[in-house]
C-alpha cells in the first residue's frame, strides 16, 4: 500500500491512521448500543491509543545521534506544527483550561492570550536563528554562543528546574486519567502512565516522539472538538459554536443578574469537599484589573519563548525557512483547541444553570438533583457537590459546586451524549498529557546526556555510549518525576504556570540577547541566568511564605521579577567586562542569515 520513503508518504500514513481512529470510535459506538459497559469502553479507548503510540515508538527506533536528538532534521513544516501543538498542549490545556474559564472568566482568559501570543516571540526572536545554529539542545546554543562550561551548565540547570516542575504535573495528569479509565489506584496508575510515556521516546528519541506526537495531536483534537460541536448542536445553540454562541454568552449574563452572586458563609464553605468551587465570577464581563490580566499574559508569553521542549521542536525542521513557517502552523493547530475552550465553558455552564433547559439544575429541588444519575457518578468521584445552605429545599447558584476537571470530563454526560464520547475524551486527555510529558522528559534527558555528559564530562564518548546514557537518563528522570507525582504535592495548573516563570527568569534574555545583541558576553550571560533564576525562586518562596509582594506581581507571575533582574544584570555585567572576541562576533553574524552552513555543522 505504501511505497517509497516514509517522509514522502506522511499525509497518506496519517490519513489512514485518522480514518482508522474514526472507525474505532464508530465500532465503540456500535459496541455501546450492543451493551458494552462503560468501563470496558474506557479501557478499550485508552489501551488502543496507547498501543498505537507504542508501535510508532518502536518503529521509530534509531542508533544515530542526529535522528535521536533532532529527528534527522527532516520533519516537514505542517507535521512539525502538529507535533509542536501536541508537545505544547498538556493535560492542563486539555483538562483544566475550560474549567478555569468556567470558574474565573475574563481574568483567567489571560492564559489563552499568553499561551498563544508567545509564539510570535518564538517566530520572530528565536526559532529561525537557533535552527540556523544547528544545535541539538537549548544549552548547546548557550554553551557555544557564550563559550565555557559554566554558561552551558547554568543553562542545563534552568532547563531542568523548569521542565521538571512541568513534567511532574503531566505525569500526575496521565496517572489521574489512567486511574479513572482503567479503574486502578492512583499510585499504580502513575507508573502505568509513565511506562506508556517511555514507550514512545525510549527507542527513537526525538524521532519517536515526533511521530507519536503527530498521532497524539490527531486524537486529542478530535476528542476536544467533537463534543463541543455535538453539544452545541444538541442544545440548538448553533451548528458552528465559535461563531454562534453570542446569544448564549448574553443569556449567561442575564442569568447571573437574575440569580446574583450570593456570598456563602465560611462555615458553610467548610462542608464543601476540597478542590471544588462554585460560580462566583462573571462569565464574560471584565473582572480583572488591566495589570492583573496583562502581567499574567506577559509572563506566559515570555515563558513560552524560553521553554526548551518547545524550542527544540524547531531544531527538527529541514531549513530555517521551514522553522519560521512551522511556528505559524503550530499556533494554528493550537488555536483550534484554545478557541474552543471558552465555547465549551459557555455550553457547559449554560446547560447546568439555565432553568429553561432540560439539563439545567439550578432552581430544581435538591432531592431531585441528588437523584440524577450523572450527579451521583461525579459526586462519588469528588467532582460535584450540592448542599442546601439556606434550607429552602431548592438549589441556588451558590449552592452548586464542581471541580475544574469536570467541565471537560463531565459535560458530555450532562448534555446526554453517549458514553463513547466520554471514553474518547479520556483518550484525548491521555494523549495531551503523554505528548507533553514525552517532550519534557526528552528535553531534560537530552540536555543532561548531550551537554552535561558529552560536552562537559566526557567529550570523547562514542555515539553508541552517548545514546545509552541518554536512554538511561530518560528512564531515571521519568521515574523521579513519577515518584514525585505520586506524592501529589501541587495541583496541575499551578505547577505548569510556575514552569513558565522559572524558564523566563533564567533563559529568556540570555537566549534573545545571544542573537540580537552582539555585545552580550559570557560573564553577562552567566550573571543573567544565575541571578534571574535565583531572584525568581526567591520571590516565589517569599510570596508563598507570607510575603506581600510588590507591583502586583503574584506567585503566578514571579517570572516578571526574575527576568527583569536577569535583563539588568546581564546588560550591566556585559558592559563592565570585555566584548566577545572576533570569532564569536562572526558567529553571531552567520546566525543572522539563513544561507550557508549551520554553525555547529554536521556532528
Amino acid at each position, binding site marked *: 500500500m505504501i511505497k517509497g520513503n516514509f517522509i514522502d508518504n506522511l499525509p497518506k500514513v496519517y490519513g489512514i491512521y485518522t480514518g482508522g481512529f474514526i472507525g474505532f470510535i464508530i465500532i465503540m459506538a456500535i459496541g455501546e448500543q450492543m451493551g458494552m459497559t462503560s468501563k470496558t469502553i474506557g479501557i478499550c479507548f485508552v489501551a488502543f491509543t496507547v498501543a498505537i503510540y507504542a508501535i510508532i515508538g518502536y518503529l521509530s527506533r534509531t542508533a544515530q545521534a542526529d535522528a535521536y536528538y533532532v529527528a534527522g532534521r527532516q520533519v516537514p513544516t505542517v507535521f512539525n506544527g502538529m507535533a509542536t501543538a501536541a508537545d505544547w498542549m498538556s493535560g492542563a490545556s486539555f483538562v483544566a483550561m475550560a474549567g478555569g474559564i468556567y470558574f474565573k472568566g475574563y481574568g483567567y482568559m489571560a492564559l489563552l492570550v499568553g499561551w498563544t501570543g508567545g509564539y510570535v516571540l518564538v517566530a520572530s526572536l528565536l526559532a529561525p536563528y537557533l535552527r540556523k545554529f544547528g544545535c541539538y539542545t537549548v544549552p548547546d546554543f548557550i554553551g557555544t554562543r557564550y563559550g565555557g562550561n559554566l554558561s552551558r551548565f547554568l543553562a542545563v540547570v534552568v532547563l531542568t528546574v523548569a521542565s521538571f516542575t512541568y513534567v511532574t504535573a503531566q505525569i500526575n495528569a496521565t496517572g489521574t486519567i489512567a486511574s479513572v479509565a482503567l479503574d486502578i489506584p492512583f499510585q499504580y496508575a502513575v507508573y502505568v502512565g509513565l511506562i506508556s510515556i517511555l514507550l514512545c521516546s525510549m527507542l527513537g528519541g526525538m524521532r519517536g516522539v515526533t511521530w507519536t506526537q503527530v498521532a497524539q495531536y490527531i486524537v486529542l483534537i478530535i476528542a476536544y472538538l467533537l463534543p463541543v460541536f455535538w453539544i452545541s448542536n444538541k442544545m440548538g445553540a448553533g451548528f458552528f459554536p465559535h461563531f454562534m454562541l453570542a446569544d448564549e454568552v448574553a443569556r449567561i449574563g442575564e442569568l447571573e443578574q437574575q440569580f446574583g452572586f450570593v456570598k456563602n458563609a465560611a462555615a458553610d464553605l467548610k462542608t464543601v469537599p476540597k478542590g471544588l468551587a462554585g460560580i462566583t465570577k462573571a462569565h464574560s464581563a471584565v473582572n480583572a484589573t*488591566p495589570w492583573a490580566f496583562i502581567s499574567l499574559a506577559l509572563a506566559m508569553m515570555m515563558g513560552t519563548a524560553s521553554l526548551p521542549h518547545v524550542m527544540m521542536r524547531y531544531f527538527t525542521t529541514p531549513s530555517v525557512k521551514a522553522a519560521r513557517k512551522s511556528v*505559524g502552523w503550530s499556533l494554528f493547530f493550537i488555536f483550534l483547541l484554545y478557541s474552543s475552550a471558552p465555547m465549551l465553558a459557555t455550553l457547559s455552564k449554560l446547560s447546568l444553570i439555565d432553568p429553561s433547559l432540560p439539563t439545567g439544575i439550578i432552581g430544581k429541588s435538591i432531592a431531585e438533583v441528588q437523584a440524577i444519575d450523572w450527579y451521583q457518578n461525579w459526586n462519588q468521584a469528588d467532582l460535584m457537590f450540592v448542599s442546601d445552605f439556606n434550607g429552602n429545599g431548592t438549589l441556588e447558584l451558590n449552592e452548586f459546586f464542581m471541580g475544574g476537571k469536570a467541565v471537560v470530563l463531565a459535560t458530555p454526560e450532562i448534555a446526554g451524549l453517549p458514553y463513547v464520547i466520554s471514553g474518547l475524551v479520556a483518550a484525548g486527555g491521555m494523549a495531551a498529557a503523554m505528548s507533553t510529558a514525552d517532550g519534557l522528559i526528552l528535553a531534560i534527558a537530552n540536555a543532561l546526556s548531550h551537554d552535561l555528559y558529552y560536552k562537559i564530562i566526557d567529550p570523547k564518548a562514542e555515539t553508541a555510549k552517548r545514546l545509552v546514557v541518554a536512554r538511561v537518563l530518560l528512564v531515571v528522570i521519568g521515574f523521579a518525576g513519577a515518584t514525585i507525582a505520586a506524592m501529589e504535592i501541587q495541583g496541575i495548573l499551578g505547577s505548569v504556570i510556575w514552569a513558565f516563570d522559572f524558564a523566563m527568569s533564567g533563559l529568556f534574555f540570555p537566549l534573545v540577547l545571544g542573537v540580537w545583541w552582539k555585545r552580550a558576553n559570557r560573564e553577562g550571560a552567566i550573571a543573567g541566568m544565575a541571578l534571574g533564576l535565583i531572584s525568581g525562586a526567591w520571590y516565589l518562596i517569599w510570596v508563598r511564605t507570607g510575603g506581600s509582594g510588590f507591583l502586583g506581581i503574584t506567585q503566578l507571575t514571579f517570572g516578571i521579577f526574575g527576568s527583569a533582574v536577569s535583563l539588568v544584570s546581564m546588560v550591566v555585567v556585559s558592559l563592565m567586562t570585555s566584548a566577545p572576541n572576533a570569532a564569536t562576533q562572526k558567529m553571531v553574524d552567520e546566525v543572522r542569515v539563513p*544561507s550557508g552552513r549551520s554553525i555547529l555543522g554536521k556532528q
Partner: protein
Amino acid sequence: MSKQTQHWEKTRGLLFTTLAIWFVFSIGIFLFGAEMESVTGPFGYPLTYWFTCQGSLGIFVILIFWFANRQEKIDEEFGFTERGDD
C-alpha cells in the same frame, strides 16, 4: 554598507513592526478591557470577550505567517536564501 548589514537592518525593521503589532493585540488593547466591553464585536460577542477568546489568538496566527513571508522576501532580496530547501 555591506550587504549583510543592510539585510540585518531590514530584518530588524521587520522585527520591530511585528513586535509592535504583537504588543497592540497582546497588551495594548487589554489596557482598555473595561472600556471595550460595551462595544459589540464580531459575531455579536462583547468586544473584550471576543478578543480574549478568538480575536487576538487569530491575529497572532496570521501575524506569524505574514512575518515568515516578509522575512523570506528580505532574505531573497539580499541573496541569503538557503539552497536546496523545500
